[in-house]
């Protein structure tokens, strides 16, 4: 079964890619159904803002019929779509950052008083994530994308290199600088 699955996935991908290249709108919907969870997950981890993440997902799929011309089949369609989403994320990262800074003071007030253990747990997770995204806001977008793909999504540098379209060495360098800066920033905080 494990041997059959990747081959099947490739066949499905190649059929879908062929239809996307022919401008079939139904193929975009199929691609959406197959990959939206992964794209949304990446977008949310990258920007830390649900609305901005949704805008990235939307733009990535709307851009797909045109972007697919660049797809050479070296990676999976999902990896290619994540790359498209990353390319469209720059503007949304900035808007999410501005929104986060504007609401920083209000954020603690927006949280409701946790009444259960689960709610307390969720609150703590939210607070920790908020700190990480605030630190990510200080990184250049290329380093931020690589950090999220490598560390938050736990992808290999080879895979990330395919997604971002950069040499593997560049990916490693970006990751190294991103981690160093983040550690410096976060360890300074109380």
């Amino acid at each position, binding site marked *: 079964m494990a041997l059959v699955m990747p081959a099947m996935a490739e066949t499905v991908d190649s059929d879908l890619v062929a239809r996307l290249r022919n401008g079939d709108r139904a193929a975009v919907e199929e691609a959406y159904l197959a990959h939206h969870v992964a794209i949304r997950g990446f977008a949310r981890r990258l920007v830390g803002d649900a609305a901005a993440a949704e805008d990235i997902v939307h733009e990535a799929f709307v851009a797909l019929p045109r972007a697919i011309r660049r797809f050479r089949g070296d990676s999976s369609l999902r990896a290619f779509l994540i790359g498209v989403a990353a390319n469209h994320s720059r503007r949304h990262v900035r808007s999410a950052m501005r929104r986060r800074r504007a609401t920083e003071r209000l954020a603690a*007030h927006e949280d409701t*008083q946790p009444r259960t*253990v689960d709610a307390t747990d969720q609150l703590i997770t939210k607070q920790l994530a908020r700190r990480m995204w605030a630190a990510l806001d200080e990184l250049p977008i290329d380093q931020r994308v690589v950090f999220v793909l490598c560390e938050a999504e736990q992808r290999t540098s080879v895979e990330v290199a395919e997604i971002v379209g950069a040499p593997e060495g560049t990916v490693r360098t970006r990751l190294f600088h991103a981690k160093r800066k983040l550690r410096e920033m976060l360890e300074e905080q109380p």
Partner: protein
Amino acid sequence: MSFEDMLGAIRDADGDDPDIAAATQLRVRRSLETRARSRHQLIGLLTAGGILLGGTASWALATGRITALWAPAPVAPATPAPTTPPPAPPPPRKMATLPAPAPVPESVPAPVEAPPPREPPKPRVVRPAPPPVEALYRRAHELHFHGGAPEATLAAWDAYLAAEPNGRFSVDARYNRALVLVRLARYAEAHAALLPFARGEVSPAGYHQPEAAQIVERLARFVP
């Protein structure tokens, strides 16, 4: 709190959200439809423009006016600037005057009904004010459970506990205060405050013990 904790927190953000996913799918569909429609409109406009251009060219060729189309536009001879003096300004308009307002007839006052006779004032029921300590508890409780700012809620619990450290509601107040500390991300203080609850060292015994134990376990990693 460690770097790994924060990284773990952003890992928790996932993309599985069926309602939002359905809304975005619809948005993508509409955007693609609009784009296709715009493209068709553009193709239609270009086709119409092409036909018009072709038709004009054919007509010009057939009527022999093709040369007129390409001929440079005739240049008008330069004429001297008019030397006539500028027209005199128009005579000042007479200001329209409004007729004097007609005298307002004195209004006839409407007959006013006599007010109903006043009922004799009822004797006020004076409710006894709650004792100050109880009022402090009520205020903290209100802020805690009805969306008060965490700093204000903490101050209210502190005010109550300062007034009544071993009162009827002090155990409840201590527990709630610890939860507010979590909300303020003061994890080490929250951990210390919840520890007696987690160990069952408060009276009544076992008060919120299981929940406190779980929260203490979660907070332990943030305690230096």
